[in-house]
């Protein structure tokens, strides 16, 4: 494996939300990195802090309730947490851009598609109207929208869900960013369109050689698109590794549970597995390992000690010392 340069490096990020006197630890010490030309996936259940991590990279945490308490977000050499609003606006859209979950509501209903794509370009670059028009058409062509000359003057409600998501991707691509954060971009789409969008993202990434941080709860999607995977649970990363390592050789009981609950042809006719219990309330997380109330392998020390990251091999890490030690390895962190 070639060691590429890290483009985005998040270290020990903690984002807390203040609500009704309680402190919701939505993201509680997350570290991950995205290297150049790489697709990294963050996987986890709803409410585990995936989206919050992604939004804090862009500095979009709503500030009265939310707060970045600790950590670093290094993007091509500069710490984004220390930047002020003005400097952040130059990064957003220009160097990092985002594709949102709901293509239905993420487009402004009163602007044409062309206006919205052009808006991003105009915000960051000086460009003539004619050149902008041609550029928008080229972008729409790139994201595979048929007859872009006609579609460019359409309003979002005239497009289908898949086309809207393509427009969102075109908007994200408009300034040739180095990193695209895709927050569950295929969740609202049906399966055939989902496959098309994933294909599109992959081909664009190859053409434009950029990185994608892909956030999803859908392991099926992740297996198709990811180079490396981070599994999140209750605001922490529980396991990380490349796609094969995670899917063939999951080492954390939570990841194992997730994989076991995927439907597949070999399990036809049998009941699907499910992980008992539900995600803990981020304001009242259990002490020790946050997964221990639902964990089949939990031992008494899980209740007290916060688990360390254990190195299995070649960048495959899992936050479960119990399984690690029972397999005869020595703990390391």
């Amino acid at each position, binding site marked *: 494996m070639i060691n590429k340069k890290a483009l985005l490096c998040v270290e020990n990020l903690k984002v807390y939300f203040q609500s009704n006197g309680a402190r919701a630890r939505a993201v509680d010490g997350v570290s991950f990195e995205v290297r150049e030309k790489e697709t990294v996936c963050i996987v986890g259940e709803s409410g585990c802090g995936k989206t919050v991590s992604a939004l804090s990279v862009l500095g979009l945490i709503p500030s009265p309730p939310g707060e970045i308490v600790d950590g670093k977000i290094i993007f091509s050499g500069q710490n984004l947490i220390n930047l002020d609003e003005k400097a952040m606006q130059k990064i*957003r859209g220009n160097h990092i*851009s985002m594709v949102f*979950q709901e293509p239905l509501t993420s487009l402004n209903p009163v*602007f044409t598609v062309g206006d919205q794509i052009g808006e991003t370009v105009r915000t960051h670059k000086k460009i003539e109207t004619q050149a902008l028009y041609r550029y928008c058409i080229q972008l729409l062509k790139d994201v595979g929208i048929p007859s872009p000359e006609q579609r460019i003057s359409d309003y979002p409600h005239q497009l289908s869900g898949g086309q809207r998501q393509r427009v969102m991707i075109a908007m994200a691509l408009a300034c040739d960013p180095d990193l695209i954060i895709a927050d569950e971009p295929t969740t609202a789409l049906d399966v055939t369109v989902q496959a098309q969008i994933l294909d599109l993202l*992959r081909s664009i990434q190859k053409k434009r050689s950029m990185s994608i941080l892909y956030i999803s709860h859908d392991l099926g999607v992740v297996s198709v698109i990811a180079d490396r995977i981070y599994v999140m649970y209750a605001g922490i990363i529980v396991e990380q590794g490349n796609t094969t390592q995670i899917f063939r050789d999951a080492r954390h009981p939570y990841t194992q549970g997730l994989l076991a609950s995927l439907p597949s042809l070999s399990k036809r006719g049998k009941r699907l597995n499910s992980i008992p219990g539900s995600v803990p309330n981020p304001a009242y997380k259990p002490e020790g390992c946050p997964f221990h109330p639902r964990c089949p392998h939990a031992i008494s020390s899980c209740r007290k000690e916060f688990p360390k990251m254990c190195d299995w091999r070649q960048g495959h890490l899992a936050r479960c010392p119990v399984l690690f030690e029972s397999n005869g390895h020595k703990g390391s962190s």
Partner: protein
Amino acid sequence: MNTDKQDSSEKIYIEPPLAPKRTRWQEFRRHFVKNKLAILGLIIFILFFFCAVAGLILTSGSNPLFDPAMVRLQEKLRPPLAKPNLVSLKPAEVPTLGIYLMGTDDLGRDVFSRMLQGAWVSLTVGFVAVGISVLIGIFMGGIAGYFGQHHIRIDHILLTLALIFGTGLMIAKFAFIGTLILLLCLAYIFYSRQTRDRSEEQEMSALKMILHGNAFSVDTLIMRIVDIMLCFPSFFLILTVVALLPASIYNIMIVIGLTSWMGTTRFVRAEFLSLREQDFVAAAKALGINNFRIIFRHIMPNAIAPVLVSATIGIASAILTEAGLSFLGFGVPPPHATWGNILSNGKNFIFDAPWLTFIPGIAILIVVLSFNLFGEGIRDILNPKLKGRS
């Protein structure tokens, strides 16, 4: 494998065909045509508009076609459609139409010419006053809705009060104390700018804690100002202000505008509170678009529909307010005709010459009604919940 992927990237997926295209404007027109009363309102409004513009052109200048100021004392209080007495009039004094279409008043002035001149006043007062109030309303409402959760610090409030107080003192001939207070304020601003970067490292003293505490939110501030403004009986506020200011049409427009922006502010704020949480606002932020552009270019077009409706109805009430002011003698100064002061002059002769009150009265009624009908028609069309009713 590799070639396969490249193939897929070249492919253009053909999406299913779309429903027949209908733009927003077409949709709007389709519903509008069905609404007979709104159409009627629009037609009357267009007629009124052309009358007002024609009135401005035909009644102004050194030698106008219709002279509203032409006094013919021998022809006073002639009823509508009366023929002028050609024997006693000089050729220049004969009305252009050959008859007094709407009669003459107590000085023998042609009421038709005066109505034409007054139409332009009503039109401009209506539009300019509502323009001012909508601009203020959109700005205040937008700020309150979008930045509402931000808090104002106590030291900022004290600073603002001190600045106002200091300026007041300077104007009121206590120049020394006033200057001292202003200088203190400037010193505090300078001091707080200098220490802002280091504030995290220092321990906060008790006084500083109080000064840097949050007093209230921007939303509270603006909406309480709105509440206070709404508490004044606005017509009497206008009367007071107009009594203090020199009487002129521009003062009246500005005063009406400044006392009627509260409704718009509430509308815009309410729209912004819901639109602010929409995904497309988050998407716009994620693309690096700055706050003011998001407020005025991305959210505002979505919030403008109810504002337009209330503005249309606001025009009607502004015309009515102006007519009321002119009627009471606080409006546009006398030689210039407005519908209000024609009405006011006419009330002395209401039994001898009822047309002097009826004609401007009915004109005001029709124009105000047409604006109201038009405004409510648009509201019904733009509000999807009311679609298909009526």
